[in-house]
């Protein structure tokens, strides 16, 4: 049976179709989830896609966190449901306190879209096990509020516990503390990532295929489970 991976659409989600395409290309069945439905339709994992949920006017992800679907996602995540938050999804996960820290306005104050080199620092999470430890990948990055911040203690803890999933290489594109591009929760089932792996799943439309690993990782995990 193919794994079913849910992709949530909030009003203002933009990369939901792309995330579903990536899920499909990875060999799983994408399931569209609607922000107003608490029902997760028995999916095996959830992707919170990029975009500007509810316009992101207050703070990115601040309003989406209170949507009905998030109630179930938050509960599921605490029970081990694999959840990947990409960009706006990462912001929603931080606002929901499923992940520590917060994402703030880029230090240069501009939206930035570029092909970004990263190092995968934790290849054991639900979403990164297809990568080699310390593997370098290039995937698109596009955000206006992507600066990862947390207090020093939290940052130290994340590093000590190996919970920094990916770090920016060559250039820190948004002023993230300690070049952090993505983090995971203690259990490793919830991952937040600022860059967009779903835009690097076809050589025709992205910088390469380096993003596919996030989606194949979770498949592997679900099959082995």
């Amino acid at each position: 049976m193919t794994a079913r991976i849910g992709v949530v659409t909030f009003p203002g989600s933009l990369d939901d179709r792309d995330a579903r395409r990536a899920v499909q290309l990875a060999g799983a069945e994408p399931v569209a989830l609607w922000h107003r439905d608490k029902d997760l339709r028995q999916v095996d994992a959830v992707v919170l896609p990029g975009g500007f949920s509810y316009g992101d006017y207050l703070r990115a992800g601040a309003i989406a966190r209170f949507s009905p679907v998030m109630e179930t996602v938050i509960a599921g995540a605490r029970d081990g449901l694999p959840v990947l938050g990409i960009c706006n999804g990462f912001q929603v996960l931080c606002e929901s306190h499923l992940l520590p820290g917060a994402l703030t306005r880029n230090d240069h104050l501009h939206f930035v879209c570029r092909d970004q080199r990263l190092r995968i620092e934790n290849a054991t999470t639900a979403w990164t096990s297809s990568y080699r430890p310390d593997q370098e990948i290039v995937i698109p990055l596009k955000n206006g509020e992507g600066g990862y911040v947390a207090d020093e203690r939290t940052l130290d803890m994340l590093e000590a516990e190996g919970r920094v999933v990916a770090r920016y290489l060559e250039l820190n594109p948004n002023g993230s503390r300690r070049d952090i591009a993505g983090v995971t929760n203690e259990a490793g089932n919830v991952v937040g990532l600022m860059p967009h792996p779903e835009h690097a799943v076809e050589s025709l439309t992205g910088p390469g295929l380096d993003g596919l690993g996030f989606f194949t990782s979770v498949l592997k995990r679900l099959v082995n489970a």
Partner: protein
Amino acid sequence: MARVVVDVMLKPEILDPQGQAVQRALPRLGFSGITDVRQGKRFELEVEGPVDAAALARIREMAETFLANTVIEDFDVRVQS
């Protein structure tokens, strides 16, 4: 060292999508009784030396020409006690 606060708000007749987004979300979060929300900017300036009339006039000019876009925004300058 004194602190001067400059508040910049969209003029009342200008659409405020940010405030509206907050207002629309409130009932869903269980907050009622708020009939309107406007969202603006608050600047806190640390000023060297005394904040006399001349200093305030300069800050007001700064607010007018730089911190606010008076085509769509109003501003308010005051010394924080």
